[in-house]
């Protein structure tokens, strides 16, 4: 700093700037620390606790509780439900967002609102709707019994409830993306003689593939983790209609903590994998966007 003892104006101004900068820096640090504390308390500690509890009696006990027949049945059921619900919602999501983003039609805003409905309704109510429709005393109950078809307290009901709860994910992801891309590329493809089907496969789909994958991953995470809606329709039959989240609850209520947390740890792992995949996709999207934009040379 200056050696002079007189307080000249530039020096005072300089000091003031330094103080302001320091305050700003402290504020930044304070906010970051606050955010980290919050994350630790509400996310990291519970996550660590899940794995800690699951491994409390060692790896052997952990693996054993996963191999237990009912636990294994729950894992298989969850995978089955997700493998039906996710592809169907993928198709529905693509079709719905294609229609909404690329065409004008009457009732478009109604459809857009309906897609959001599962987000607005409590999952328990979502499950209850199916009980009221297909349950023993529901609208179609007597007909279903007559024809020996079981939906409620069976796998079809679980699939339906899961689909209802997860159907906004893909569409929500794609609608803004497709709307932003407009229809000019499709028109160009059609004018070049491509059929509608080829236009979709060669032009539309490649343009939305990352957004689609993102939506599918979120959809899958929710499909595997859904509790409320599935709980209502499943009937909690051990080894038959218990999905992983339901099985965790059953085990916990039986004070079988190690097994409960062991199954829970799988769901936690799924969350971690989902987050990693999501980050990877976002990174990839950014990369493909920037790498194309290094314009070299103007060759007019």
């Amino acid at each position, binding site marked *: 700093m200056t050696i002079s003892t007189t307080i000249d104006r530039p020096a005072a101004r300089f000091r003031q700037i330094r103080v302001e900068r320091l305050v700003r820096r402290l504020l930044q640090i304070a906010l970051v620390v606050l955010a980290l504390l919050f994350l630790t308390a509400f996310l990291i500690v519970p996550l660590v606790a899940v794995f800690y509890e699951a491994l409390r009696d060692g790896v052997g006990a952990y693996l054993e509780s996963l191999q237990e027949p009912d636990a294994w049945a729950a894992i298989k059921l969850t995978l089955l439900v997700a493998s039906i619900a996710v592809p169907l919602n993928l198709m529905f999501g693509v079709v719905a967002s294609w229609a909404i983003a690329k065409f004008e039609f009457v009732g478009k805003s109604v459809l857009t609102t309906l897609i959001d409905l599962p987000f607005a309704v409590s999952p328990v109510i979502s499950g209850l709707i199916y009980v009221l429709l297909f349950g023993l005393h529901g609208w179609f109950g007597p007909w279903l019994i007559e024809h020996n078809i079981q939906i409620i307290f069976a796998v079809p009901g679980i699939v339906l409830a899961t689909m209802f709860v997860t159907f906004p994910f893909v569409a929500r992801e794609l609608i803004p993306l497709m709307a932003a891309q407009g229809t*000019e590329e499709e028109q160009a493809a059609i004018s070049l*003689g491509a059929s509608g089907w080829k236009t979709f496969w060669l032009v539309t789909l490649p343009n939305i593939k990352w957004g689609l994958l993102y939506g599918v991953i979120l959809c899958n995470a929710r499909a595997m983790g859904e509790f409320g809606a599935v709980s209502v329709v499943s009937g909690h039959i051990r080894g038959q209609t218990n999905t992983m989240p339901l099985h965790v609850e059953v085990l916990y209520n039986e004070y079988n903590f190690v097994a409960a947390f062991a199954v829970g740890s799988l769901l936690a792992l799924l969350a971690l994998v989902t987050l990693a995949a999501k980050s990877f996709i976002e990174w990839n999207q950014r990369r493909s966007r920037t790498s194309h934009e290094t314009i070299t040379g103007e060759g007019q």
Partner: protein
Amino acid sequence: MSIEVRNISKTFGNYTALKSVSLRIDGGELIALLGPSGSGKTTLLRIIAGLERPDDSDAAVLFDDEDVTWREVGERQVGFVFQHYALFRHMTVFENVAFGLRVRPRSRRPSKAQIREKVRELLRLVQLESLEHRYPTQLSGGQRQRVALARALAVEPRILLLDEPFGALDAKVRQELRRWLRRLHEEIHVTTVFVTHDQEEALEVADRIVVMNEGKIEQIGTPDQVFHQPANEFVMKFLGQVNLFHGRVEGGRGIFGSLVLDSGGQELADARAARLLVRPHELDLLPSPNGRPSVKVKVTRIQAAGPVVRVELADERGQQLQAELTHAQRRELNLTVGDIVHVSPRDARIFVDDYSI
């Protein structure tokens, strides 16, 4: 291939884009659809392409006298170049140009080697051979434009349609591409229609110009005709700068303040409201009236940088006028700002409202 459209009307909701438009374009012509935004020119182009449908059932679009009104765009064999190019962003330049050939049904699809050869040939034509592996985002505006053109030409279109082909480019690139398009047209000679709102572009490039306004055609003619013999006031105003005088017609003469003009060749009925339109280069500047009909004006600004000298003038009521002189004329007049001179129209057109008495 000739194009004919008959009785084309098109509305979008409450908005009328085209009002019963009919037009015939001969094979091999290069036509400009010229008009301000909202004049319906792009809609007409899209209807010719098959990207939009006309409203009425008596409307018709004919290619070489063959009715294609209800045929899909993909079946019309038109090359369409979109205003923002609409290049496939996930495909390279090569793949973009090859697209139209690759999506053909297997029976009509050329072999891989043939496609390669054809694409290379087109890229040579648009001077982009070295960029075939680039993605659209790695190209400049002018390069994208030429890729779009090559892609449209790949399907060997019978008609080439371009929507504001130079709209999104900067002035210099625009100039070059215009001349290039003209040369390309002379080379491949496919019937071409392009939409533009830039009169200079239309005058420079097109064989014939279709001037449009508010969903109707105002005039069809060669650049020379629409510029020198405008059919009406709109065409005259749209195709270049004009000076406007308000006045009336009495006894076959136009009276615009101190300017009293004989009708010249024009048949003039008496009218209470008439307008005199004079282009800046058709306005003579005189030191004294010399017996010619003239208006006394003051020079307010001289802009001498350029091939002509632009002079801004103001009459006694403060109305602004513009004139264009050669540098030699200016020297002769020894013109400076603040001078009082007399302007006299050398060539002028008087327009009278239809509804006036």
